[in-house]
């Protein structure tokens, strides 16, 4: 909870700074319905020989291949330093419709086969540690800050939020350490998120494709699979964890205009029902992702990436409570257009 409130404070500061820097005359109440048209930088520049080179990128649409060094600790287990790989296909669409107060826009960030991190070398419990998602979609609608009540006559009420959905389908998380109780041997452990869906509200209402501050609440359905020590997943223990709209989230996403720098902060707090002892448990996670494009090779950017995350995993009958802290520093090749 303390971490979440700290994150909230940080996000508020960031929003205030971003609004000051980029709004430039926008009505703070109504928001800007167009993606900050005033100071849009050019996509290409030309060198003295007339050769063009790209100086603006779409951070939401790309194929990402990265390598990093990860520092991970799970409390008293010490720090594990290991190389890790990152990969993913990201595609962003931004559509607008209507005129004036009827104008609305949708920003949709799609991520396919998104491997947030994968340890090819260090394999606790005999399987590679990883966090990967089959599909994640973040949908955010921006429009005039009103809701229309279909009464007779229709009523319009002030509603200062952009509305969206944050959807995750098919996520696999294999933790860095799966030490069993009483410092027993590590066992294979998987958390499979079948579906997580959040309704998100964005009070910032930037209207830009890259900037948002999202507060969400929603449901999750996770399945923990604990393997057998000797024969892997031959006879696993399966624990169902269901959060019926009790999960909450905060997310701040910032991108600069040329698409060279991106910051993403996200936190989740999830009280949920566990099938193991049919009681309620609490899990949480928070992530920070910062990337900065340093160079581009043939107009394909190469970025320095910094990731940090914290994940609290509730205990089970065999595995104690796990608090996993991670920090990584790496390089990513961002193939896109």
């Amino acid at each position, binding site marked *: 909870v303390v971490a979440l409130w700290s994150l909230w404070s940080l996000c508020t500061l960031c929003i205030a700074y971003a609004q000051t820097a980029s709004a430039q005359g926008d009505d703070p109440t109504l928001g800007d319905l167009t993606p900050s048209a005033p100071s849009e930088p050019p996509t290409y*520049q030309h*060198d003295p*020989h007339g*050769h063009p*080179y790209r100086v603006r990128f779409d951070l939401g649409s790309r194929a990402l291949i990265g390598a990093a060094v990860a520092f991970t600790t799970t409390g008293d287990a010490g720090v594990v330093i290991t190389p890790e790989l990152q990969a993913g296909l990201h595609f962003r669409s931004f559509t607008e419709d209507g005129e004036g107060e009827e104008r609305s826009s949708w920003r949709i960030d799609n991520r396919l086969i998104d491997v947030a991190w994968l340890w090819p070398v260090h394999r606790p419990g005999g399987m590679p540690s990883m966090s990967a998602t089959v599909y994640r979609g973040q949908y955010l609608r921006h429009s005039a800050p009103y809701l229309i009540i279909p009464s007779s006559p229709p009523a319009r009420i002030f509603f200062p939020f952009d509305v969206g959905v944050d959807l995750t389908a098919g996520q696999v998380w294999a933790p860095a350490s799966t030490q069993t109780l009483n410092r027993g041997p590590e066992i294979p452990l998987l958390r499979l998120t079948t579906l997580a869906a959040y309704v998100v509200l964005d009070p910032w209402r930037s209207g830009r494709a890259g900037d948002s501050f999202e507060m969400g609440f929603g449901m999750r359905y996770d399945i923990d699979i604990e393997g057998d020590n000797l024969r892997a997943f031959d006879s696993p223990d399966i624990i169902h964890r269901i959060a019926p709209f009790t999960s909450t989230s905060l997310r701040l996403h910032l991108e600069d205009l040329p698409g060279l720098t991106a910051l993403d902060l996200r936190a989740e707090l999830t009280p949920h029902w566990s099938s193991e002892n049919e009681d309620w448990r609490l899990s949480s996670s928070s992530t920070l992702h910062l990337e900065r494009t340093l*160079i*581009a*090779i043939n107009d394909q*950017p190469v970025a320095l990436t910094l990731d940090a995350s914290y994940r609290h995993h509730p205990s089970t009958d065999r595995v104690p409570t796990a608090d996993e802290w991670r920090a990584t520093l790496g390089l990513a090749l961002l193939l896109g257009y």
Partner: protein
Amino acid sequence: MPLFFKSPDVHDAGDTQHRALAADAHMPARAAVTVFSVLTAFAALWVCGALTASAYAQTPQLKWGDPVECLADNDNQPVRVQCKHDPDLGGAVCLVASNRVMGSQIEPSRTWGCSSYGDEGAYQRLIDQGFRMIPALVEAPPGWGRDARGRTFQVTFDLLQRLYVGASWQPTFDISGREQVLGRSNLEVGGIGSWYDSFEQKRHEVRFLEGSLRMSDLEARGMLMSYDMTVRRDVPLMWITTFIGEPTRYDGMLDLGWGMRLLSFVVGPRRYIDVRDVEWGELHINAPLWKSHDLYNQVRLELGGNLGTTWDDRLALDPSSYIGATAALRARFTLGQSGLHFLTIDAEGVLPYFAQGVFEKRSTYRMTSTIAYEVIPIAIVDQPLSLRVAASADYREDLSSGDGIWETTLWLGGRFSLWAPPLERTFE
């Protein structure tokens, strides 16, 4: 058996070997006389050709590509006429060339054709109009000359398109100077094809069925085929933009091409007659360090890898397979625009690592470098006969003993090339 001359501190045992050395002692003198005779013959032919050519070099010639009017002169003989106003020739002139090969009724070959045909009396009308008639040679296409009788002959040669057979005297020296092999000769054959794609700005080069046999030690070398594509790009292959401070672009003008080699072999290299080496394939990238506009002249660097097998019967009959890294620096220049002078430089190194066999987990190093100059003094039936002078240095590490040996070789000989077309080059 090669002829060995050894320095006095090397003692041979046995009368048989002494007699052999004594019997072969005249070999260098005979070889030198033979080489001198061949060179003298070449020089005599060259001088005669030069004197003959100078006799009609001043005769005007119809210009290839300009309109030619075909008509009959006042003696009713067919002639080819190009009329123009040329201050150098004294104003209005007509160059007139017989449209028959001298002494026959055969029309000259390789002409531009007739743009128009004059009627009877057209020749006289030109005279009446004030044109001065100047005897001239029939036009000839680029790369061809025409003699006073109207016959054509090829005067430029593209040595990157030919089949060739050659022979050379090839004395070989140990770099330490302790050993010389003077009675060594070399026979060689091969084929080269090369063409320039001006649209893609690429030059393709194929070498095929190249082989050589050295006598009398019977060292054989050969190659099935090789291919190289070199490229000239107007747009840089790679550029890097930095976003630290103001975005800035840096170009990498690397014109990367590629090449390959299939099935090369060396059987019984000198000193190691029990060694056979087969390179099954080699693949490399190349980058011109310097190139002419049409990539005909170029200096290029090659980096790649190869796969091969080595047999060394001194140790085992079983082969050892290797994977290796290759690097080469190659340069070629045709001096002037005739293609009569050709200079090549090749330096190649191979670093094989044996993955299997009796040499498993061992690596070795081989290097060869050659500089060669080839000049065409004469052509027989438009097929050039060239003189080739070369020097090479080779390094080879003997896997059995671990010794590394340097050798230098001189080449002095000739090549007879077939179907080398006229040199057609595009210049900026």
